């Protein structure tokens, strides 16, 4: 005991386990994993082996064993996913899609709150999670807009019967602290649970001479409460409320002026759900959901105490949805639903409060004509008050040759609605003087500028514009799950996404100050294609080795066409001469690595309570900037060099697994690239202690 307290004092940490005794069960039983049930891909329970789309799951146990406390940390270690550095937060890239195109869900309900399309994953704690499900490929047929690259669904833990609780903290480099307090009480009927999580950091500075922090100090609180009640075996209700508030202490230099001030970010999610089983064949659900997202910042120039920048952003999202699940015959199951949504936004850069209304209906048939064959056919229709209606079909099938080998294929359409920014933005850069107007505002705002005599020439008359269409994609995924012998699991997926009508800004007029006026258009047709594979092997009871990789090509079709026509030029890096760009020199879309890979070795011994793992994550070189002014990546100095991160964690369990001591090292090799990668702070070392208790009834 003395030793334990000593550790606590030294490390100032307690890192507890929300899940009761979950660290004990080994991760080695693959047969268990095959029977694992997933829900996100079809909105119904299906076994992982049978579900005909590429699905990966990350268990709570795995997250805890790796000592990872925020969603970005765990996702960055997954095959084919990369967490991108951006000033607006850490977003996820799936199959070469930007973060805008992946829906992030908490218990099946979409999280909102994106800045320039990025939903910051570090907002989301991994506390009180049962597992994370990742579906790759479009699932707009069930979830609508945004579910174009895929869906990440965070599934909350259900408390065990009895009283339980835990405290868990992790502390380390950059005063990065994560503390969670969990409490739960459950009977056969009632389930009540709640947690508080505090996440804070002193931030870090990659370029000290700039006088500005790369990440400013911040602290954030997550409060979560869940109440469930089973009236009978047939009827149950569930309420969940989650609130997240984060405050950043900004402090940076602009032209030798010190700018300081707080920025706050708030999210609120509240849901209520009622499930009733009418018969063995028919189950109905009704769900109400509210989500809010708001930011506020006030920045003061300390030189003269003037207001440097003051902004606010308020977004609200409300939804009511009805879903039914009907087993027509044993081999045919129908799932369908209807819903309505109301969204609004008010912000500094919008003229007034903007609102959206939309309604939708979806249906899905899950048919097993043969025992080994599973076919899923579904579709969703979305009608919207501002942009054109969308229909998103999906067809998927899996064929189980044996218990060991399953072939899967799917095709479907995904879409992403134009966002508030693309429709309503009204922004003029005060320093440089350019303006950006959303599609709906372009005509009136341009007219205003013309009346003020600020326009030199109109390039595109807004009156001639086509209505802004949703961005959409058609996707093909094909692969297999193979378990050649005990302890080995091998998956392969080949994918192709044809993406149409990508929205980008383009000048519509030239101002008298020489700057442009921009608006949004459906411009680009791009495609991404590639393959990914994952393999894991458990051996000698305690050991797991695993690895994965993704090969990716992501190109703009119009650039390829121009290259073919000999119309794309660049500057040679060495001679600085103008050269014609060949297809082989075209690096494709920015931020996409052609090669990504990861490898892991893990050890778990239940007798001694020792758990350890070492992970290597490789991100191949990727296009970063356009140096020679042709708008594309074609030179070596336009790439960010590839790199490997090494992460490791070691845990020891004590007191019947109630107590865990853990040391975690992130980026042990201390890899940094200050000019290009803002989310690599260098080596991070954390220590943690965990304590949990439960009282069975």
């Amino acid at each position, binding site marked *: 005991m003395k030793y334990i307290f000593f550790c606590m004092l030294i490390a100032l940490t307690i890192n507890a386990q929300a899940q009761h005794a979950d660290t004990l069960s080994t991760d080695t039983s693959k047969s268990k994993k095959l029977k694992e049930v997933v829900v996100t891909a079809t909105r119904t329970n299906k076994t992982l082996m049978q579900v005909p789309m590429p699905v990966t799951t990350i268990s709570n146990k795995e997250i805890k064993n790796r000592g990872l406390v925020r969603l970005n940390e765990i996702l960055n270690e997954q095959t084919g996913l990369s967490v991108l550095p951006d000033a607006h937060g850490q977003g996820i890239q799936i199959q070469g899609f930007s973060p805008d195109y992946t829906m992030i869900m908490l218990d099946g309900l979409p999280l909102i709150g994106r800045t320039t399309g990025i939903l910051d994953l570090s907002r989301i704690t991994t506390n009180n999670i049962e597992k994370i499900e990742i579906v790759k490929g479009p699932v707009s047929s069930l979830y609508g807009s945004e579910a174009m690259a895929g869906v990440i669904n965070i599934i909350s833990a259900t408390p065990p019967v009895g009283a339980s609780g835990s405290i868990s903290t992790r502390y380390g480099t950059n005063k990065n602290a994560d503390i969670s307090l969990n409490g739960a009480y459950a009977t056969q009927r009632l389930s009540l649970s709640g947690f508080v999580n505090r996440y804070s950091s002193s931030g870090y500075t990659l370029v000290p001479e700039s006088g500005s922090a790369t990440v400013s100090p911040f602290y954030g609180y997550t409060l979560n409460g869940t109440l469930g009640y089973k009236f009978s075996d047939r009827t149950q209700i569930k309420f969940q409320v989650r609130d997240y508030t984060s405050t950043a202490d900004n402090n940076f230099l602009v032209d030798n002026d010190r700018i300081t001030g707080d920025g706050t970010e708030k999210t609120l999610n509240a849901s209520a759900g009622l499930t009733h089983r009418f018969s063995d064949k028919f189950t109905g659900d009704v769900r109400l959901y509210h989500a809010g997202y708001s930011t506020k910042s006030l920045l003061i120039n300390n030189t003269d105490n003037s207001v440097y920048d003051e902004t606010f952003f308020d977004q609200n999202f409300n939804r009511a949805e009805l879903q039914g699940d009907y087993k027509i015959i044993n081999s045919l199951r129908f799932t369908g639903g209807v819903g309505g949504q109301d969204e609004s936004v008010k912000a500094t850069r919008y003229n007034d409060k903007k609102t959206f209304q939309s309604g939708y209906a979806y249906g899905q048939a899950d048919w097993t004509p043969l025992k080994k064959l599973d076919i899923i056919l579904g579709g969703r229709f979305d009608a919207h008050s501002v942009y054109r209606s969308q229909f998103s079909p999906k067809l998927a099938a899996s064929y189980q040759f044996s218990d060991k080998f399953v072939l899967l294929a799917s095709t479907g359409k995904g879409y992403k609605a134009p966002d508030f920014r693309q429709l309503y933005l009204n922004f003029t850069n005060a320093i*440089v003087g350019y303006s950006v107007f959303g599609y709906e505002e372009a005509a009136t705002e341009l007219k205003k500028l013309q009346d003020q005599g600020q326009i030199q020439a109109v390039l595109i008359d807004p009156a001639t514009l086509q209505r802004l269409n949703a961005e959409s994609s058609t996707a093909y995924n094909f692969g297999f799950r193979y378990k050649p012998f005990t302890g080995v699991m091998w998956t392969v997926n080949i994918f192709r996404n044809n993406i149409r009508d990508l929205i980008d800004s383009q000048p519509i007029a030239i101002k008298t100050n020489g700057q442009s006026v921009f608006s949004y258009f459906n411009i680009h047709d791009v495609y991404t294609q590639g393959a990914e594979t994952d393999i894991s092997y458990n051996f000698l009871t305690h050991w797991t080795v695993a690895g994965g990789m993704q090969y990716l090509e992501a190109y703009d079709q119009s650039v390829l066409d121009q290259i073919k026509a000999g119309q794309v*030029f660049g500057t040679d890096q060495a001679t600085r001469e*103008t050269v014609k760009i060949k297809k082989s020199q075209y690096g494709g879309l920015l931020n996409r690595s052609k090669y990504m890979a990861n490898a892991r070795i893990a050890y778990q011994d239940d007798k001694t309570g020792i758990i350890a793992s070492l992970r290597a994550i490789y991100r191949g070189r990727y296009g970063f900037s356009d140096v020679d*002014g042709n708008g594309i990546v074609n030179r070596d100095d336009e790439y960010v060099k590839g790199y490997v991160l090494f992460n490791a964690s070691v845990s020891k369990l004590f007191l019947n697994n109630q107590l865990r001591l853990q040391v975690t090292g992130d980026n042990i090799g201390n890899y940094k690239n200050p000019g290009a990668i803002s989310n690599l702070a260098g080596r991070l070392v954390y220590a943690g202690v965990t304590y949990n208790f439960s009282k069975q009834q």
Partner: protein
Amino acid sequence: MNKFKTLALVLFSSTALLVTSCSKDNETPEPVAADLTVNTVADLDGSKDAVYYSLSTNTQVTGDDITAGKWDLKFSTTKISVNGGTSGTGTTQAQVVNSTFADLTTAPADGYKTDAADVGAIAGWYKYTSETVPQHAILAIPGKIIVIKTSDGKYAKLEMISYYKGNPDTTTPIFADADNRETITPSRYYTFRFAYQANGSTSLK
């Protein structure tokens, strides 16, 4: 010396293109058509005022020669005007063609325009970097070859190389420092190369 280098380079590259399969021994330089002159102009100073240039004489035009209309091109900040239309008394026309300096061997037969009030004949030769590194810089877009038909019907091709004194490497951290850029490498110093066909044909080879 710069001129010589460029000439040598053009000679070499056109030769290399034509006779890539030849062995080194029997390689004979293909002579440039007698009437074509290739020149590189370095740091033409337009930092204080607009600067005028004559392609036929390969010299800067000043004083009374400007009013007399003895110039072909006028450089004023990022705007390049032709001696014609709303910009001058002549009938000079131009267009921007997507190609490389070496590949553009014949001037297009048509497509030329002169300067008008709202839009110039020469547009889109540069990009303003705005917020991307190097911030707030004017960079020549590669592959924008300006083809000029002078007032006396002679053809020329011209490639802008730099907008900054000394034709600096724009990929360096020094150039990226927008605050000190005007001190180290002042803007409105034009570096460009051009080929002028004196015999009146469209051949620019």
